[in-house]
């Protein structure tokens, strides 16, 4: 309400009125469950994560080494020609520091997500992952060198989280 407006027309309702069922509404929780087939390329990629390796696919036409791997080159629109491994080290392409969680609550420690161009992959290709062990977040820079920190082999399940996070390295 402002100085000029003292009252809105109609009846005012409060949160409490909803809780007490004075305001009618319908709620519904959908049961939506899916199990996506990973397919040829991503199945192999996930299998190799279990082995602690990052798989890429290659295109003989544009000479790109592509990660995450795919069975087609989206640039040349042709099937890819081979598989190769790229390193688990790379360079920060860009990053963001989150201070709040998905539910908007304030985090004790910020979460840093980075786009990492992996060594051995073509320009601008790599992985999205967390960054950790960086000390002060203000020290994180584009172009910083990082390396994957893997879960122990027995804990790996063939998921992107088989890599715990990436951490800065000195070379």
């Amino acid at each position: 309400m402002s100085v000029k407006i003292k009252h809105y027309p109609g009846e005012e309702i409060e949160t409490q009125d909803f809780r007490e069922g004075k305001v009618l509404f319908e709620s519904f929780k959908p049961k939506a469950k899916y199990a996506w087939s990973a397919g040829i390329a991503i199945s192999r990629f996930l299998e190799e994560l279990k082995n602690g390796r990052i798989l890429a696919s290659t295109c003989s036409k544009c000479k790109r080494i592509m990660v995450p791997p795919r069975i087609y080159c989206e640039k040349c629109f042709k099937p890819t020609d081979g598989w190769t491994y790229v390193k688990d080290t790379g360079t920060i392409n860009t990053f963001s520091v989150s201070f709040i969680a998905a539910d908007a609550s304030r985090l004790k420690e910020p979460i840093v997500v980075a786009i990492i161009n992996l060594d051995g992959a073509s320009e601008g290709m790599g992985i999205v992952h967390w960054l950790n062990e960086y000390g002060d977040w203000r020290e994180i820079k584009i172009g910083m060198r990082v390396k994957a920190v893997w879960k122990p082999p027995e804990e790996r399940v063939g998921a992107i989280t088989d890599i715990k996070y990436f951490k800065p390295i000195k070379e």
Partner: protein
Amino acid sequence: MSEVAIIGVGCVGFRPMTPELSYKELMFEAAVKAYEDAGGINPREDVDIFVACSEDYLEGFSIFDEFVPDQLGAALRHLFTVTGDGMLGLAAAYMLIKTGQFDTVVLEAHSKASDILTYTDIVQFGFDPIFNRPLGGHPYYVAGLEMTRYLYETCTTEEQCAQVVVKNKRNALLNPHAAYGANITLDQVMHSEKLFHPLKKLEISTPADGCIVMVLASEKVAEKLTDKPIWVKGVGWCTETPSLETRDWTRAVYTRLAAEMAYKEAKITNPWRDIDFAEIHDLFAYKELQHMEALKLCDYGEAGKLTEDGLTSLNGEFPVNPSGGLLGMGYGLEASGLQKVLEVVIQLRGEAGARQIDDAEVGLAHTWRGIPTATGVVAVLSKVK
């Protein structure tokens, strides 16, 4: 205004499940086939616009549009998604070319039904949340409601509906793209479990996985790239009220009005005479009959008799669902419409092999968006420009 032709088709599936391929890989395979079929076009250069068809809730992604470009050769190209049946995409592609601004349009629709673990719940999510969802139950009871009223008003018999299944599943045995071909008897259909009275288990199409990609082109481009263009002579679409409480339960009015729109454009005055065969949405057996009537292929209440007398069988006077229909091919969700268009194209080209209809020149494709919708699309296709 340029005529519009379908110059390339590619299909993967349909199969009960495709665990070996991701939806992207499924789409890539269908796209490669379609581009090859269209005279070996390069999608990176030769295509003006891509139209993909998908419904987020069937995919399990929000804004599924964004996951489409790479596998179609559409990355950094011009693409949009129609959140509906593939034939609504066909209508969009057709209009794009009719504007004269675009010569080559790629159309895609797929089904990864086997990725959906809670199919029934997803279908139910399409129900009105205030009036209908709270009643729960399997959403296909809506088909039971409609079949009851349809039989009551038209005097169509349950046997006549069951005959559709026998015919379609047999046709499917001749179609390599069909997942559920079978040689079954009327008795088997009639004695299959009643699931939603009067609807029986074998009268319900089973979902299947697959992908269809098509290339559409203007006259100018079509005649350069292919010597077997199939011309789209007219397209129509229509949506009835979503209200289960007030909709017409007998006549599939949405299909009647869609057909009138398409027929007017294609200059069809007597569909049974002017058209040689039809691919009609048969998610449930009775729907083929009800849709035949809505499509003006006969009067209300006559489709059952025509089917019983064999006039709609593969060797009949007016074959309906030579592909095997959805009962035989499998229900391809939003790809259903393109399953229909695909068969019409194959037949008109004379490439249908053992199920080829002699002298097929004009064919009709029809789709419906399934339970609980009342949306239909109709297209008339011709071998002759």
